[in-house]
């Protein structure tokens, strides 16, 4: 994760929200599952009460039944004790389960909400945030919440109620003796507070060191062939050892504190019991208010109070960790989603005509314009080829017309018989059902061919016939049938298909959807010649019968266009048919002479990874 990504997720100048307000907002996710949570919370006093009851039974036995030799009374007490134990076990199990169930369901919903939101974030957001950091918001940060909900918040609540009820019971039994035992409380407070805080800091350091080490490991293993081919094994190993040492060092320090805290609690528990006996002894021997049974009960209580206190600090830490995660998650959720607009079908009668006037656009508000006053028309069914060198703005044009990027100036009118509709007034999702952009890099999902063509569109997904027909239109039917048909699994990022076949699938998506306006960013990376011919024929099929803006690299495609727009530095320098422009001998003719093929190097003037959907981390290890 780069520094830029984390800082852009946090709004500058806003103070970090308090843990409480973060948790309160979180309640909105928990609300649907509140029955489980309330049920679990309601069980807490019951569990605490039952566990406070046990020592009282013990006290009764020691003070009454045993001295009086009442064997029957003792049996009754024994049975009551066992019943209380079973009841406590069941109540506590049900309570824990209910809270965990409510917690996990809440987490699951939160993850879904984050995922759904990220899918709707604008392309600019993706430019500024590494996908890795978005992924960790959706998985690791949410997992940190899970830890808190499952072990933190509610167990702390349980512990507090438990300790409270024990202290109350102790006070009721004997206030003076309770006060004596409570003298250790300030010591405990100091220990938990300072040791706990120090321990937490160290644990944070340990986690950071671990993350660095694991991250390094992951990258070296992904690029292991490069490491091996370049003989970098020893250097990598040394670096790994260095990162490991840092980890080891922090761990050892944390370990010392942890051991000390653990032992202190253990020792103080025994110490307090001794202290109590020391002060209670005179009263017991002189037949005072303190009975032997009372001492038994106190010993039992004291043994149980220290356990939860010991873990207090750790649990508080998980809550703090969770609030850091929550802050990051909210930062993401508060990012505005893609712009809205008309959802009513204003484009019902649109036939693909658009009128672009003085279109200007820049990626960053302080950046240069990449489109500088472009005007052209597209008639229904017209094929327009856009050509230009890298950085001329031709890819940007497609991104603006599909509302991947908002904030253009000038006007883009979708001309319909019912009147013009301004592009920015249309909801993006609605618009993209009519205007389909096919990018250079075909992105395939790890699923079968059917899914990759339908992309889950409910109308298409269930209709094998339409999918097959779409493959047929782009002449991919034979290739796909050879592979195993619609059910063929294309593999991760389409690893099981050649790049030509992947292109054909992308075209089949178009054929299945029949958009009114197609924006085609032609791929440059050439494929083998047989597939290449198929790809060209498929493109020609797609160009027929609809309005098309094709960002063209192949001469064959350009010659098929009705008109050619030549872009240079964000401006249209020439417009006309191939023959006209060749005759003119201007910029276009020059380009043709120099060879049209443009690399897939992203527009140089665009922000660094503006190809939304570009394949990230292409380094695979497959043969």
């Amino acid at each position: 994760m780069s520094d830029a990504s984390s800082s852009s997720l946090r709004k500058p100048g806003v103070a970090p929200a308090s843990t409480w307000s973060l948790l309160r907002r979180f309640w909105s996710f928990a609300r649907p599952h509140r029955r489980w949570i309330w049920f679990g919370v309601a069980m807490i006093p019951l569990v605490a009460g039952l566990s406070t009851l046990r020592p009282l039974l013990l006290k009764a036995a020691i003070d009454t039944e045993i001295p009086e030799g009442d064997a029957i009374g003792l049996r009754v007490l024994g049975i009551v004790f066992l019943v209380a134990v079973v009841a406590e076990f069941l109540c506590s199990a049900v309570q824990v389960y209910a809270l965990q169930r409510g917690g996990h369901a809440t987490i699951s919903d939160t993850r879904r909400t984050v995922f759904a939101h990220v899918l709707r974030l604008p392309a600019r957001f993706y430019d500024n945030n590494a996908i890795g950091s978005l992924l960790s918001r959706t998985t690791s940060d949410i997992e940190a919440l899970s830890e808190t909900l499952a072990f933190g918040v509610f167990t702390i609540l349980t512990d507090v109620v438990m300790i409270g009820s024990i202290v109350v019971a102790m006070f009721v039994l004997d206030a003076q003796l309770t006060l004596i035992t409570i003298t250790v409380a300030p010591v405990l407070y100091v220990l938990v507070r300072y040791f706990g805080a120090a321990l937490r800091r160290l644990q944070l350091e340990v986690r950071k060191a671990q993350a660095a080490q694991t991250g390094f490991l992951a990258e070296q293993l992904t690029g292991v062939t490069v490491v091996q081919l370049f003989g970098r094994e020893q250097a990598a190993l040394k670096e790994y050892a260095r990162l490991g040492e840092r980890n080891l060092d922090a761990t050892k320090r944390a370990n010392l504190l942890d051991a000390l805290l653990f032992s202190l609690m253990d020792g103080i528990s025994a110490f307090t019991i001794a202290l109590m006996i020391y002060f209670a002894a005179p009263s017991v021997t002189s037949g005072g208010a303190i009975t032997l049974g009372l001492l038994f009960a106190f010993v039992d209580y004291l043994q149980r109070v220290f356990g939860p206190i010991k873990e207090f600090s750790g649990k508080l830490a998980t809550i703090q960790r969770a609030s850091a995660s929550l802050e990051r998650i909210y930062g993401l959720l508060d990012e505005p989603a893609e712009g809205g607009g008309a959802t009513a079908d204003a484009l019902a009668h649109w036939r693909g005509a658009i009128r672009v006037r003085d279109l200007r656009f820049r990626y960053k508000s302080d950046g240069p314009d990449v489109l500088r006053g472009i005007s052209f028309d597209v008639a229904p069914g017209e094929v327009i080829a856009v050509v230009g060198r890298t950085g001329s703005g031709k890819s940007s044009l497609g991104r603006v017309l599909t509302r991947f990027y908002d904030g253009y100036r000038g006007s883009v009118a979708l001309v319909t018989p019912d009147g013009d509709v301004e592009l920015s007034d249309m909801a993006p999702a609605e618009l993209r059902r009519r205007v389909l952009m096919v990018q250079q890099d075909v992105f395939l999902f790890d699923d079968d061919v059917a899914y990759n063509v339908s992309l889950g569109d409910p109308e298409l997904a269930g209709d094998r016939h339409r999918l097959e027909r779409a493959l047929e239109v782009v002449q991919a039917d034979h290739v796909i049938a050879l592979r195993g048909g619609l059910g063929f699994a294309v593999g991760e990022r389409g690893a099981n298909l050649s790049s030509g076949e992947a292109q054909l699938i992308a075209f089949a998506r178009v054929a299945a959807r029949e958009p009114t306006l197609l924006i085609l960013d032609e791929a440059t990376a050439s494929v083998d010649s047989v597939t290449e011919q198929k790809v060209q024929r498929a493109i020609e099929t797609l160009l027929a019968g609809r309005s098309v803006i094709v960002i063209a690299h192949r001469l064959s495609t350009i010659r098929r266009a009705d008109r050619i727009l030549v872009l240079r530095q964000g401006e249209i320098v020439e417009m006309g048919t191939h023959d006209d422009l060749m005759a003119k001998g201007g910029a276009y003719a020059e380009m043709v002479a120099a060879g049209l093929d443009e690399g897939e190097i992203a527009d140089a003037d665009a922000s660094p990874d503006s190809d939304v959907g570009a394949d990230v981390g292409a380094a695979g290890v497959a043969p």
Partner: protein
Amino acid sequence: MTGTFRFLAGYARRNLVQYVLGFAALLATNYAVVRIPALLGDALNLLEGRSALLEGRGAAVLAQARGIAVELMFLAVVVIAVRTLSRVLFFNPGREIEYRLGIDLFERLLGLQRPYFNRHKVGELISVASNDTTSVRLLVGFVGLQVINVAVAIPMHLWQMATTDVALTVWCLVPVAFGAAYMRWTVKRFFTMVRDGMQQLARLSDRVLESYSGVGTIRSHAAEAATLRRFDERNGEYLALQLRISAIRSFGMPVLGFSGLVGAGAVLWAGGNRVIAGELGVGDLATFTALLVSLVSTLTSLAWVVGRGMVATSRVAELLHTPDELPPVQRPLSIDGPPRLEIRGLSFTYEGTTRPAVDGIDASVAPGKTLGIFGKTGSGKTTLVNLLTRVYTPPPGTVFVDGVDVVEASLADLRAGMAVVPQAPFLFSTRLRDNITLADANPRARGKAKPKAEREAPEPDPRLDAVLAAACLQDDIAQLPQGLDTVVGERGVMLSGGQRQRAALARALYRHRPLLVLDDVLAAVDHNTEAKLVAAIRALRSGEGGSAPTTIIVSHRTSVLEHADEILVLDHGRLVERGTHAALLRQRGLYAETHAHQEGQGMDDA
């Protein structure tokens, strides 16, 4: 089981002194831990006898009871010291073992070859190297402690209980024994589920990553709803498993503690009866209950850690002992000048497939000459290159460098003489500069160790400048935020495919070795750049700055191969044509046909 222990003992041997001292501290701890309940019982027994003693010896009893209380306080302080010591002494070696294991695992992984990495996903290996070593650490640290607990603490508890009362010991141990047995079984089940949970989380992450990476495609096709459904499948699956884990956690895990309470009930009932019968002091009941509590907590932590650690240890041991599948090194190889390369009847079939990926290839490249390899996707070009660079081990007697069969030489010797650009360029998340000068320094150490402010201006490196020019990278670098010092790779600025390829090319040129292998490195660059790169590579060949390297260049574009001294044309793994560019064009075969086609796409027919 014994294998696991022998494996761990090998690692633990170095920390013997710590373990011996830790053992002493542990003995002291456990002695104090069982003494405390016994003293508690004694004190209560004394106080219980008050009625008989009230007549005159009350003061003496009181003094005695208080004496015991003071002894208890003293023991409490002792416990703090010795327990801390025992935990530090036992846990620290565990950490050190984890550290050493991690390094050994990484070293092993770095020595393993491509076929292994094809069989195992990186995520899975990372899980072994990080999660499993942690479990092993718990096993050697915690379990070291616990195993000794079993050998020392449990017998001491039992002994203390039995000396107090044998019959009562049997009474309260019966439920605890059942509880412990159940716990052992449950913990195993629990960790299997936790492991499944981690795998499902990984699958969920894969899906999220795929969706975020493909968000452009999802958006263009308005497929958000379907994507969300696909996400829901995995998310729901994960939730279901989490709920099953929760059920075990809430109903199964507390069973051992519950059995301890049942034992306490038995103490109350059976013990009470024995007190009534005059066979036991009332304070002994407190001793029993306290010992029981302490015993149950020991058993609980034992069950937790052993269940988790054993599985992990076997997995770690398996990975550490994975053979590298490399043939034995039989002779030294030193590639000092441009080598002669020979391929004799080379065939190779990938594991799990039946059709050979390359089939009966023969070729010979004289020192300093260039061999071109041409073919379409799937024709076996990359396989051939991977065999020449021994990413896959070729069959013996098929590939020779300077007359030495490559399988008889060591990988290090062979690779020391070559610079390779693999088909999928890989950049590390370090500065671009470090990625290119990879061969000279550890990129990571240099890139990360120094904070930005302290980084002195880089020393001028004429070789680097020359390489950047040759790879046409200068314009790209000028546009990066920090130029050559920009961090690239997954955690840095994402470069385009063409930029990545040229950076990888620059890296190989910088390495400057007598054998240069370029696997389809110009696939993602445009025609103009391609021409410049080809010219740069040719300039290299013509011997600028030293002798020309022997070069192997793979491409599906004829324009890249024109200048090669010989071109092999592959189709379905077989050699179908061979010759110079001119000769191949005259043959009017696959090569000539593709050439005509590719040229036609460019400018010639305009």
